């Protein structure tokens, strides 16, 4: 009996040590100070309360530690007139603000919103009891890495002149890597990057060229607007959404620097539209892909259908506005501007409702059922 108790205690201690080490190793190179964030274009959560911020203006990715923020009960979250509220709190008008992203901490469901003000100020808010509380970024535990490759940084130091800039479109964390998509102001191309985390001085930096065959004759290397890293038939893939609106899948292990990566188009979701956000939601053992769009309702696609679709669309859609490929359902949420997971099987949206109200609210899990 004594031996068993000793064994269990040792096991618990071992587990705690492993967890502690994993936690500390991820934040080992974090320092407390001002990361000098100039813009918040995209946000995503990693493990252990680490919030990644894509800052195009400073050409950097900043990982900030928000694990010390107390858990807030957001189970009844609903904020109406969200833009009006933000404008009031900043002493400005609604045409002077832009909600640039929303992220939910998967460990405690704390909700964060990033806002850009016309003066060039970036503000991070935390939702707290249906109110917005600003999160100070002046003195925060963080780690960061540059988005400029070493050659460009060198060139900037020497010439001190403007280099290529690019805007982060989407950013996701998966298995020790930050993946980013974006668009340059100089060339129209697919800028897709993979950066190892924790960040190191010797940054493993990959700029990947991702193409999708556009109907046989010409190919496009357009930028990815929104994407999710996921598993398709058990192996790692990226599901990427492009403007106007092909949905393309790439096997992650085949995306390598210097390799011409070509994806498989599994759906065309209708023209005149652009994906805004994409998430994967699981409910009752089934996985679903939710896609928020600029000009279409929120779409729900079943992973089982995605996995079953083995073809690649190679012929143009002739019927105007029609969708082809993997089937999906339109959910009754139009003008969804921000979308993120909420809890294991829920979702959270910022939606411009038909009456003009901009609302932050939960989508009912009821919609994520077969």
């Amino acid at each position, binding site marked *: 009996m004594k031996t068993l108790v000793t064994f269990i205690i040792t096991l618990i201690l071992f587990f705690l040590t492993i967890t502690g080490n994993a936690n500390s190793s991820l934040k080992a190179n974090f320092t407390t100070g001002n990361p000098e964030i100039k813009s918040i274009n995209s946000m995503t959560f990693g493990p252990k309360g680490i919030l990644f911020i894509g800052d195009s203006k400073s050409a950097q990715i900043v990982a900030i530690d928000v694990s010390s923020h107390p858990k807030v009960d957001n189970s009844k979250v609903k904020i109406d007139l969200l833009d009006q509220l933000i404008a009031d709190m900043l002493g400005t008008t609604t045409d002077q603000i832009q909600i640039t992203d929303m992220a939910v901490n998967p460990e405690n469901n704390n909700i964060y919103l990033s806002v850009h003000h016309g003066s060039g100020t970036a503000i991070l808010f935390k939702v707290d009891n249906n109110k917005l509380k600003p999160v100070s970024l002046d003195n925060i535990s963080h780690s960061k890495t540059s988005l400029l490759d070493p050659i460009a940084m060198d060139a900037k130091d020497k010439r001190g002149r*403007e280099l290529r800039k690019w805007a982060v479109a989407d950013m996701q964390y998966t298995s020790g890597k930050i993946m980013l998509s974006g*668009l340059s102001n100089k060339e129209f191309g697919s800028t897709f990057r993979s950066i190892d985390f924790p960040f190191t001085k010797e940054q493993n930096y990959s700029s990947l060229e991702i193409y999708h065959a556009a109907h046989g004759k010409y190919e496009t290397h357009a930028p990815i607007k929104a994407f999710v890293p996921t598993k398709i038939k058990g192996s790692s893939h990226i599901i990427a959404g492009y403007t106007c609106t092909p949905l393309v899948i790439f096997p992650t292990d085949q995306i390598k620097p210097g390799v011409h990566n070509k994806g498989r188009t599994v759906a065309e979701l209708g023209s005149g539209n652009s994906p805004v956000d994409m998430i994967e939601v699981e409910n009752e053992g089934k996985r679903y892909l939710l896609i928020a769009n600029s000009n279409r309702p929120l779409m729900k696609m079943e992973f089982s259908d995605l996995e079953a679709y083995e073809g690649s669309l190679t012929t143009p859609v002739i019927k105007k506005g029609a969708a082809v490929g993997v089937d999906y359902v339109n959910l009754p949420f139009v003008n969804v501007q921000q979308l993120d997971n909420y809890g294991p099987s829920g979702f959270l949206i910022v939606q411009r409702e038909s009456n003009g109200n901009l609302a932050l609210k939960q989508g009912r899990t009821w919609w994520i059922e077969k």
Partner: protein
Amino acid sequence: MHNKFKSIVSVIFISFYFVLGMFSQTSPRFSFGKTRLTITDEFNLSNNLKVYRGQISEEELDRTHPILGTIQIDELELHFTPLVPFGWNQEYTFIYNNTIEYFTLEIPEAYNYLAVEAIYPSAKSLPSNLLKWYVQFSHPVNEVHVYDYIRFINNQGDTLSRTTLSLENALISEDGKLLTVWIEPGRQKRDLIPNKQLGPVFENDAMYQLIVLKNIKDRQGVSMQKDFTHLFKITYADRIQPSMGSFKILPPENNDDLVIFLGESMDYGSTLNSMKIINAEKQEIYGEWQLTNNESTLIFTPKHPWKKGQYQVLIDSRLEDLAGNNLNRLFDSGVSILDKKQLCDEYKLEFSIK
């Protein structure tokens, strides 16, 4: 009796003053600027200050959210610094010690209003598969939904729809003054669905206007004073790659500038960022690059006088013409061609100074 009356009057008078002293709402002395509201009130220094946007009545205060900011007490003054600067021509309300006050920052008479200083491409005749515009502003432009203020109008006065790539995050240069506007690539690139269904954005042999609407704002939240209009004509699509063979170099003599004739109008942004000069020792020659003659001629002014010797102009293969064709490929290149072709990242032009 008279004394008694005097005493009663005195008590009433003192009491009145006492009550008045407790509940009086004398206006605080205050001043304000773009980044600070200062209250000078030596007897009531405290933190009970709240600032609101708009002219808010006492009844509305509970339903309105105060402005975020920090309060500092500095000797006999109380300062409120808003999280973002106060806006010009915006009314504000503040409540301090149960007193409501209002203030507005009027735009200064000598305000330097936002204006469009240049537009690229500057040529009046442009290919129908044109891919990008650059708008050069006089000072930093407000990025919020900035693309909503760009319009293209045809000769009949109709506003064209779905012309530009709408980006959530604006592409603006580091100094905040150069805005990149992408013409919807899906319509310009052959065979994509938008191109098939809607055709290219511009038609051959037609006149158009690019308009930057006057309600676009600067970073102070102040609009331009009038619309900016740029007239241009569309000609046939450019489906020829820029070629090193068409670049002609005019070597400098003594302290002259280096001139490179590019053979056609090139893309403003990618051209200025694609050039570098090195000497025989591979050291970079620093100086200023300028695009002139409708962006078809490059001029390099060295920071230091030229020295005798051999030089190379290194040109990034990503240098693009107006239709997005670069030194390695056409914008809408064929799949098979691109897969097989071995491409180089950099091209060279050589010259010598004697």
